[in-house]
């Protein structure tokens, strides 16, 4: 599986760390407990295109929002979670 890191270019999945479902809405630190319980413990488990976080831990270390089909492992898109002052690969 290759993930197209917007900074480094397409790289093998072995360079990345999975950081989970990106559809979850992170509550504010002082949000009610129930919101945090949902955030921490509950998952939707999409079968099909899935928005998820990956860190390019063996590369630029940026976190990416990747859309990947959980039925086929096809990676449909990848972009920075946190747009930073970094150039795109090849530019």
């Amino acid at each position, binding site marked *: 599986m290759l993930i197209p890191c917007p900074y480094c270019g397409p790289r093998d999945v*072995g360079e990345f760390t999975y950081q989970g479902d990106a559809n979850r809405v992170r509550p504010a630190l002082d949000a009610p407990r129930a919101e945090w319980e949902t955030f921490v413990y*509950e998952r939707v488990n999409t079968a099909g295109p899935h928005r998820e976080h990956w860190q390019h831990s063996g590369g630029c270390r940026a976190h990416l929002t990747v859309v990947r089909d959980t039925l086929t492992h096809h990676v449909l898109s990848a972009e920075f979670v946190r747009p930073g002052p970094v150039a795109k690969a090849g530019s």
Partner: protein
Amino acid sequence: MKEYSAFSVLRNAFTGNRDWKPAWRKAEPKPAYDVVIVGGGGHGLATAYYLASEHGLTNVAVLEKGWLGSGNVGRNTTIVRSNYLLPANTAFYEHSMKLWEELSHELNYNVMFSQRGVLNLAHSPSQMDDYARRGNAMRHAGIDAELVSPERIARLVPGLDLSPEARFPVVGGLLQPRGGTARHDAVAWGYARGADRRGVDIIENCEVTGFLREGERVVGVATSRGEIRAAKVAVAVAGSTGQVMKLAGIENLPIESHVLQAFVSEALKPLIDTVITFGAGHLYVSQSDKGGLVFGGDIDGYNSYAQRGNLPVVEDVMSELVALFPGVARVRLLRSWGGIMDMSMDGSPIITTGPLPGMYLNSGWCYGGFKATPASGWCFAWTIARDEPHPLNAAFSLDRFRRGLVIDEKGQGATPRLH
């Protein structure tokens, strides 16, 4: 249905093996049952068996989408053990172990449970302390456990690299002599045959496409072979839990579905007589009766329903195996495959009533569903029959996560890829 025995094998041999009957009937779905179990894997079939044998509930159907046992019961690395740390787990898995020890006899089906011992290798003094804590937890729960020295390990596991030059030298280990392996498919078939003999309908190629509801209450299932009504609907579908529960309108669960690969080498003459786990990585290996080394490691670590994994984990697992057993360098990998694990948020399972009235849920088996099969079925059957959990599975509730009553064997928190 005839009993299996050495005598029946002999008698049939003389009649050209023409008189054997199907191990279970190809049942047609009836319009209604007392209990419908969704999922014809090890846990679903065991549940059906114990509903019939322990609770006298025989108007039961097991619905399997594909062929019976096509999920993780036929994809695992066949290890059976009860070497857990936390009280809820030790009690549950030891109950399972005791059921395993009588299972072939109980089912009149040889599941080839081989108590060849499960050995966890330790690679530092602090890891030995960890193992001592777990081993003592086992001993205090009445489970067999021994700390073993490198000298003893050398005798138990010839060929294991015990040299001080190893990247992670072995300093000792924790042995559970009663642990071992079983023939995975036989467990599904044995429970299926046992349940069938007690009147349970086992219905293959029957996909659940929806749940029948009366208000909140679940009153049956819609299937690819028509609607089936049931007083109680039990779900035991492992990696498919999220998808099946969505059909009932349950969108969120404390489960993540991940792919786990497993591997088998070509058949060899006996080489490894024990189940070995590596303590400085993640590898478990044993040798099947047919001679193949059966082994695995970490989950790939991402959500997946593809039943296929990728190369980094393959390379990792192979490198750990060669590191432990340098003699297998030229032994060849025969086959690899993938299964979908229902990773829970604390690494421990869920066996519970609900989450809807009329519904029962069995899930969250992570890496460890196979060894749990007997106790899982036994406890789930109890929970379904009596509408309340048995003390053995009372802790495996669905609300324990929110309440903070997590059973976190590895202490990793709600990060499924780390359990």
